[in-house]
């Protein structure tokens, strides 16, 4: 049997022996594991099942879209509150608090209440989301860490500064006064500004100064002349002092000549 096998295995010359000839091959069905014929082994190796590469799971391909969490009702409420605050109040100051005491906070609030200034706390997230949608987006970098908002309808900066001086933990970061963003120095300068009436008065006086000067210069000569003539008349009435009169004449002549 082996010899017949070998004969079939070498049909062409030059082929290497592919199999070892077995002296007594076992039958097809054996009790032990029969070594697989080499040809069969090759065939099986070639035709091995290559499973298809599973495509990426659908979750991996699509970008993870974070479910835009619906804002909680509280956040919506706070937002509305903020909106009304920004609309109503002329002065909004942002202050960072480094762990202020409860009693100090109460005292601060009390002092500020006297001037109608209120202290408000809002969560930073809500404030940031609100500000990014509104025109006050430049205030965004202020709201980092623990912040407190101090709002008032009237821009009473001096009083606020005085009250904040007493508590060193509250650090004034910036303020939005009458829709203008101010830094700390800006707030200080604003507090030193005089009131509107004085400024208006100063402006008016400055503008009219020029014109009033011209008017006074134009009137200067006739006014002086009339004053001198009046004095002349007064002096004529009591007595005849010719020296005084001649002096007067010469002085008036000099003035009109000049």
């Amino acid at each position, binding site marked *: 049997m082996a010899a017949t096998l070998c004969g079939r295995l070498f049909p062409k010359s030059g082929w290497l022996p592919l199999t070892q000839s077995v002296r007594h091959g076992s039958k097809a069905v054996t009790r032990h594991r029969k070594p697989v014929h080499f040809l069969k082994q090759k065939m099986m190796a070639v035709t091995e099942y290559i499973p298809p590469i599973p495509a990426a799971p659908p979750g991996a391909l699509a970008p993870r879209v974070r479910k835009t969490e619906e804002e909680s009702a509280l956040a919506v409420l706070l937002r509305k509150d903020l909106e009304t605050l920004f609309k109503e109040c002329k002065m909004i100051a*942002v202050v*960072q608090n*480094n*762990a202020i*005491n409860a009693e100090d906070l109460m005292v601060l609030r009390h002092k500020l209440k006297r001037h109608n200034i209120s202290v408000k706390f809002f969560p930073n997230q809500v404030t940031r989301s609100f500000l990014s949608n509104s025109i006050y987006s*430049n205030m965004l*970098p*202020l709201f*980092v*860490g*623990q912040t407190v908002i101090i709002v008032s309808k009237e821009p009473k900066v001096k009083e606020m500064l005085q009250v904040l001086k007493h508590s*060193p*933990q509250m*650090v*004034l*970061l*910036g303020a939005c006064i009458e829709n203008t963003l101010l*830094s*700390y*120095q*800006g707030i200080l300068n604003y507090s030193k500004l005089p009131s509107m009436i004085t400024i208006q008065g100063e402006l008016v006086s400055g503008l009219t100064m020029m014109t009033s000067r011209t008017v006074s210069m134009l009137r200067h000569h006739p006014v002086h002349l009339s004053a001198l003539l009046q004095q002349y008349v007064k002096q004529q009435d009591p007595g005849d002092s010719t020296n005084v009169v001649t002096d007067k004449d010469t002085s008036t002549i000099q003035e009109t000549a000049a």
Partner: protein
Amino acid sequence: MAASRGAVVLKTVKKIIVQFCPFESNVRSTREFLIMVGSEKARATNMNCEVFTEVKHDRSEPTVDITFVDGERLMMKGSKLTTQEMLSALQTRCSAKDPQAKAGDKK
């Protein structure tokens, strides 16, 4: 994001001055450092330590200037540092100065 060792111990610190410009974007870590240092716990460790804050608007870097009891000064420029790094730097220096006293107590 508390400090790794709980509260900050400020026993050897005399004065802390923190300067920053709140409108810059790199001040977050400095501000958080200020909050950690100015917290009740930290201040309770040393009532004599003063914490000053200066708010500027000249686009300068945020800096932290710490003066220790023995006169040493630590300047930290916080624009590229994280809060943790600053806190750990401060704590290592504090504990380096302090253990002479602490070791004496323990022993």
